[in-house]
Structure formats: structure tokens, C-alpha cells
């Protein structure tokens, strides 16, 4: 009786096993295929380091670079800096969006106002936040405020500009249709402008976060109040090239985290939504 039941269970598993196994194999091979280039890169790096006998200040070996992370993690420097960089990005990003979207909606809701403000917002979007860094240093000194102000600026303008442009691209019929049915301005914003402008808002968000992340790194290098950029810059002053490499790899990984963990999911959700609107 018991054996029969086990047999049945096994049979069941066998039935579904190929699909599961296949999926696993496919996932593994996909992972392998995207990890292989990095393995080759590390191999080349190692070969260059060995072949040219480079000093560790010029090019540390991959192993040196990896082992340089341990003291950083043990002393809590790395977690501390990563948290402060990500927190800065999150706060400034949040405020940038919270201010940029309403501003874009406000300016976009009137044709003349949006025509008037298009070159203005475009100018300040094009004018990189990094260029404001020296002035912010004069205004706020070498501290948290300077970094926050620069990222906030960098996030706000692309979001505001693209929200405004997005609102203008929503076909007027939709707004007219709702107006005829007696909808107020709030209803219009909620049901027409925000959903209609969403693809454009997200384009602005992506641009703002991407520029903001770079401004953050540059700001931390210049200001020196902690953060990954500061880690890199401090390591350079002490000729700790292995730490510089660690910081760079970390910056790349964290951006991938922001991109794959936050921007892409949001985009996917809204691109689908956009598709629904098109249909």
C-alpha cells in the first residue's frame, strides 16, 4: 500500500519533472551565459596583472581586490556608505518625483503655459546638476545638504519636463469627453493626464534617476561626507587601488539593482498599462 503510494507520487513527479528540470537547465544556462563574459574579463585582468608585473597601486589582482572588501565590511564602512548613498538617492528621488510630477501636470494643463515653459525646463534639464555643485558648496558647505540639493535638482527637471510633455501628448478628446460628462479638474488629472502621461513621466524618472545617480557619485567625491563616491575618492588619496576597484564594482552592481529592482518593474507595469490604453 505504502509502496504504491510512493510509486504514484514518484510517477507524478516524473511527469512534471522534465518541465521543471528543463526550466532549471534553461535558467542555469542563461545564468552561465551571462556570467561567462565576466569570468573571461577576470581572467584577462589576472593575466595582465601577472604578465606585466604591475604594482598594486596601478592594477591590483582580482584576488587582492576581493580580499580588500573584507576589512571594509568588517569595520562596517561599506554597509554604512552603501546605506548613506542609497538613502540619499531614495530621498532626493522621492522628493524630486513628488515635486516634479505635480509641477509638470500644472504646467502641462494649459497649452500656452506649457509652450512658454518648454524651453525653460529643457534648459535646466540640459544643465547638469553636477555643474551646480560648486555653487551649492558655496551655499550649503561641505555636507549632506549640498549632495541632496544637487540630486534633487537633477531628478526634478527631467521629471517635470517629461511630465509636462506627456500631458500635452494626451489626445484632447479624452479630456473633452470627461469634461462633457461633468468631470472636474481633479478627476481629469486622475483619470486622463496622469495615466496618459505615464510613459513620458517614467522616461523622465529613468533619466532623472540615471543622471541623479551619477551626480550623487560626483557629489560624494567632491563633498566628502561619506558614501560610495567618497570611499572611491578617499581610496585614491591613499593609493588603495584595490578599494577603488571595489567601489567601482559596487557602483555598477548598485545601479543594476536600482535598474532591475526598481525602474524596470515600474516600467513593465506601466508599459503594459500603456498598451491597454492604446487598445
Amino acid at each position, binding site marked *: 500500500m505504502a509502496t504504491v503510494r510512493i510509486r504514484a507520487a514518484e510517477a507524478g513527479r516524473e511527469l512534471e519533472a522534465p518541465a521543471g528540470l528543463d526550466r532549471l537547465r534553461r535558467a542555469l544556462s542563461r545564468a552561465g551565459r551571462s556570467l561567462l563574459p565576466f569570468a573571461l574579463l577576470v581572467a584577462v585582468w589576472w593575466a595582465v596583472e601577472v604578465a606585466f608585473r604591475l604594482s598594486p597601486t596601478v592594477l591590483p589582482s582580482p584576488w587582492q581586490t576581493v580580499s580588500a572588501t573584507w576589512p571594509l565590511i568588517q569595520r562596517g564602512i561599506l554597509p554604512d556608505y552603501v546605506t548613506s548613498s542609497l538613502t540619499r538617492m531614495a530621498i532626493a528621488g522621492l522628493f524630486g518625483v513628488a515635486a516634479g510630477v505635480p509641477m509638470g501636470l500644472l504646467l502641462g494643463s494649459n497649452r500656452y503655459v506649457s509652450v512658454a515653459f518648454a*524651453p525653460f525646463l529643457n534648459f535646466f534639464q540640459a544643465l547638469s546638476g553636477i555643474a551646480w555643485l560648486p555653487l551649492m558648496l558655496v551655499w550649503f558647505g561641505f555636507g549632506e545638504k549640498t549632495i541632496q540639493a544637487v540630486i534633487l535638482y537633477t531628478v526634478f527637471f527631467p521629471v517635470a519636463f517629461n511630465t509636462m510633455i506627456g500631458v500635452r501628448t494626451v489626445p484632447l478628446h479624452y479630456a473633452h469627453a470627461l469634461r462633457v460628462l461633468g468631470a472636474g479638474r481633479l478627476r481629469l488629472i486622475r483619470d486622463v493626464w496622469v495615466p496618459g502621461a505615464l510613459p513620458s513621466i517614467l522616461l523622465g524618472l529613468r533619466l532623472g534617476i540615471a543622471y541623479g545617480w551619477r551626480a550623487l557619485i560626483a557629489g560624494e567625491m*567632491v563633498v566628502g561626507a561619506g558614501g560610495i563616491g567618497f570611499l*572611491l575618492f578617499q581610496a585614491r588619496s591613499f593609493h588603495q587601488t584595490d578599494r577603488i576597484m571595489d567601489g567601482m564594482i559596487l557602483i555598477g552592481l548598485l545601479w543594476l539593482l536600482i535598474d532591475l529592482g526598481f525602474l524596470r518593474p515600474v516600467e513593465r507595469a506601466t508599459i503594459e498599462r500603456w498598451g491597454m490604453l492604446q487598445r
Partner: protein
Amino acid sequence: MTRARLQEIGLGVLPFAGLLAAWWAITGLTHVSMATLPSPAAVWSAASGLWSTGDLQTDILTSMGRIALGAGVSIVLGIGLGLAAGLNRPLGDLLLPLASFFNSVSGIAWIPLAITWFGLGTVAVTFIIVNAVFFLIFFNTVLGVRSVPRIMEQAVRTLGGGYRELILHVFLPGALPHIMSGIRSGLGFGWRALIAAELIAATSGLGFLIYDASNFLRSDRILTGILIIGAIWMIIDNLVLKPLERRTVERWGTVRTL
């Protein structure tokens, strides 16, 4: 010029005029210090002072030379390697993940290493710009080449075309819209990387001008530099990159209707 276009320009000037008026009023009515917010007149005299000594021209030319050099190297390498990786699928599969990782690292993160390797100056700055621009162009070129319908390639092959014809008449024109958008967004990041690199890793150029000015609390000079940096980018983007992008997209349109 049509009436509508004139009206657009007229309206577009208004917010700038409003900002200028507000700036003037703040500096005129309140006793805000020169270091905090210099008046428009002070910024103008700082700008003309820098211009008359020739410093401003030198810094502008230095920065533009660096972005041109960095962009030139990135465009040649990006399109060349991108075509190679686009035509060879295994090579492309190998290089794309690396390109997307290095794109995430971003040019700015290379600043400390560039200083260690090349010292302060044009080589370091150009290296940083190339790191900000190259990977995007490369990435887009590969995607562009891959997006060319195979039937076009096969048509040219059937008619006896070799690799030269394929690249010149099929893959390069077919990938051009992708390449152009890669160049445009790449240069957007490159220009910002240039400013950051000059703040930290150079002793000349517009980025250095504003950073040096901040050490002496010369906000009039900082604002001069900021406005020039914004204006130059607007000129590059609106008069060079956008028209080029539009033209290639139009070209793509005609290619597609064939």
C-alpha cells in the same frame, strides 16, 4: 517664419525673463552677499572680465576639445566594435553583458582610477568621457545591427554582395537610427561626465573654472560657468544631435516603406 513659431519663441522667452527679473529683484532689494547670490550685472562683468583676459575662450575650447576627442574615439570604436559584435552572434552575446555592466559603472566612477593611471589632465578626462559614451554607442550599434531584417541581408547576398556591400548598404544604414540615439544619449552622459571630471581631475576647462571659483567664493564666476555649460549643451543638442537623429529616423522611415 510662421506666426505660430514666432509666438512660441515669444512665449518661450517669458519664463527666462521672469527668472532674470526675480534674480535682479532679489539681489537689488535684499542685501544678499556677493558670495551667496551675485547680481546679474556682477555675473555679466565677471563674464566679460574672463572674456577679455582670454581665460573664458581657453576654457571653452579646452572643454569642447575634450568632449570632441572623447566623443570621436567613442563613436569610431563604438560603431566599429558594435558592427563586429552585431554581425557575430557569439561575440555579441559575450560582449553585451559586459557592456551593460560597464554602462552601469558609468564614466564618473572612473574618475579616481583615471587620476591614478593618467594623472590630472586631458588624458584622464578623455578616458572618463570615453567610459561614459562608448558603451552606450556600442550597445545601441549591436542592437541596431541585430534589428536589421535578415531578408535584406539575404537579398544583397543573393545578388552577390560581399561583406563590404553588406556593411555599407545594409547593416550601417539599417542600424543608423539606433546608433544615432545611442550617440545622443551617450553624449548627454558624456557632457556631464566631462564637467564632473574637470571638477576633480583637471586644472583647466569649464568644470575647473567653476570649481576653482568656488574655492575663492567667486559665485559670479561660478554662475558664468554654469550658464555657459548649459548654453553649450543646448547648442550641441539642438543644433547638432537632434537634427542628425531626426534625419536618420526619417531615413529609416523611407527604408521601411521599401
